């Protein structure tokens, strides 16, 4: 079985700092692999361990460390799609990934549910839509049996169970098994594994195909909310009086 794992490098969420005066992130923040993507990669590796085949780890935009990490964890090869303006917005990223996936034709595409930087959660669904593949998002558990996935997904008020056959796009949440740490052997092996570098033109994508739909207008800090009235350290009777007065003053007692 051919399995693709899609990963993205994001600013380390533990180190991100926002400069409110400049409306930008403080520069120089280390990039790490998006956390959900590591869970997707782990799922891809486990699937390969079960059914055989190969895992291809791919990224759009600068992702040398992320791809190295994927190879060190056990992926068989890596594909780095780099070019000006990439990764772009979710639409551009999905367009590029779909163009590459059309060529690779994997049986299963694992990706993270969303990234910790832009957080749109739409790359996986857009890839599935562009490729006209079924999509299962919010995956928190899965089994592959008799050529079918039995999938547990998290929904707003509970869990949903679905069955789906490859080819399919699956979006991972962090309730899946923990991503493995690379072994020393894996780290050393990674140096000898193939890394394919592709430009969008090599996927027949011209500049017209790479126009973002979303315009980035910079970052703003949320407006600080005024502190509420805190009634504390007063006798209960007085607290009740004050609460009633507060509500009455706002016409909330009918």
């Amino acid at each position, binding site marked *: 079985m051919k399995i693709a794992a899609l990963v993205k490098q994001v600013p*380390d969420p533990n*180190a991100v*700092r926002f400069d409110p*005066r400049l409306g930008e992130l403080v520069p*120089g923040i*280390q990039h*790490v692999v998006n956390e959900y993507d590591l869970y997707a990669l782990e799922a891809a590796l486990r699937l390969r361990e079960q059914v055989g085949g190969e895992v291809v780890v791919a990224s759009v935009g600068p992702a040398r460390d992320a791809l190295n990490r994927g190879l*060190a964890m056990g992926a068989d090869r890596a594909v780095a799609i780099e070019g000006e303006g990439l990764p772009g917005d979710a639409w551009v990223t999905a367009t590029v990934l779909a163009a590459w996936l059309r060529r690779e034709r994997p049986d299963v595409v694992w990706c993270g549910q969303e990234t910790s930087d832009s957080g749109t959660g739409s790359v996986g669904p857009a890839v599935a839509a562009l490729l006209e593949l079924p999509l299962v998002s919010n995956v928190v558990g899965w089994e592959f049996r008799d050529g079918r996935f039995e999938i547990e997904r998290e929904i707003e008020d509970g869990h949903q169970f679905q069955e789906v056959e490859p080819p399919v796009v699956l979006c991972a949440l962090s309730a899946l098994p923990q991503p493995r*740490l*690379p*072994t*020393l*052997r894996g*780290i*050393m092996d990674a*140096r000898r594994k193939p890394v394919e570098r592709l430009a969008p033109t090599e996927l027949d994508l011209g500049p017209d195909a790479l126009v973002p739909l979303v315009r980035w207008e910079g970052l703003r800090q949320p407006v600080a909310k005024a502190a509420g009235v805190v009634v504390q350290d007063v006798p209960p009777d007085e607290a009740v009086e004050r609460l009633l007065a507060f509500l009455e003053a706002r016409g909330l007692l009918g």
Partner: protein
Amino acid sequence: MSQERVEVIVVGAGPAGVAAALTLARAGVEVVVLERGAYPGAKNVMGGILYRQPTEELVPGFWREAPLERAIVEQRYLLLTEEDAIGLTYRTPAFGEPPYNAFSVLRAEWDRWFAQQAEAAGALIATEVTVEDVLWEDGRIVGVRAGEQGELAADVVVIADGANSLLAQKAGLARDWRPEEQALVAKELWRLPAEEIERRFNVPSGQGVAIEAFGAATGGLLGYGFLYTNRDTLSIGTGALLSELIEHEVNVSDLLDRFKRHPAIAPLLDGAELVEYSAHLIPEGGWRALPTLFTDGALVVGDAAGFVNPLSREGSNFAMISGKLAAETILEARALGDFSAHALSRYWEKLEKSFVLQDLETIRDVMPFVRARPYLLRDYPAAFAHSLRHYLTVDSTPKAQKYRAIVETLLAELGPSRLLRDAAALVFRLAR
């Protein structure tokens, strides 16, 4: 399953380990750095001072491109009592011009940049690898074990895993440390606009100030408080010997809180916003606590070896130079095809010829000297401050009477001849 093998393993991607890896990679040696953090610098306490000359021995002209915060043009020493401060300031524009003397750096950024230089030279830096033990064969060290992450074999292991080195102990080179051999430092990073820092510290753009404060900065314990200006942040912290913190049942973060509230310090932080905080051990055992620095198949560098000068707050320069000397030793051993303790003993000779061991020897008696005289950081600041207040308070007292009162204050608070005896003893220990 055959074991993976490289020529040299460096454990720890701090300044010492990276300096060793950089030197080795440049000479064409296959070297792997194993770092337990998510990236080099991730485990490092934020702010620090980086010295230009020793750093240039590894990356000439680094200051043109490395992520540096400010060139330090002014050093302030403060002696604090609960409320008062006595200061000594040295400032020179020469330190603000190329090639500079020292810089403030944010360690997470500097360490990463430094590690990138080693990577560019051909070293492999593997992160999130926690080395737990060394591998032995016929009584010599032949590699490392990283728990479930497996094993890696090498001709030599460079132990650069920092203060309180687990690996030096596992290798049988260091004994367990004692509380009087480590300082515990609490550090914070506060954001303040660059222009405000320049106004407040009276420095031009790109230049900065380092402050070291003694006495009440640590509640009289053996240690000091510090404040370094970064580009748009301030690094502030206090550190004290662990043994003294334990003995006096003091929490180091409480010391830092008190330091920040001191009337001479608080205005410098006014309006700043807290970004990060952390705590860190610094080896202070010096000469007397040196581990065995080499054995068959292994060398110890940087903080792991206790290479720190507590008197002049230097550490990163000791780390980098010791890493470089270890690498040069390995290159010589490699040429001979001999990585025995005998071949690696050249490391000791190189250290002895450099400032690394010479400075440790120079200051070998200073910490015991101060530890034996706890009043130095408690009574002296108070006595000096009282005297200066007398002297500077204009209250129509005739001066002769004032001078007499000052001498009487000093004698009463410090005891006759103690002052001279202590000064003479200290000079004798440093200059012999």
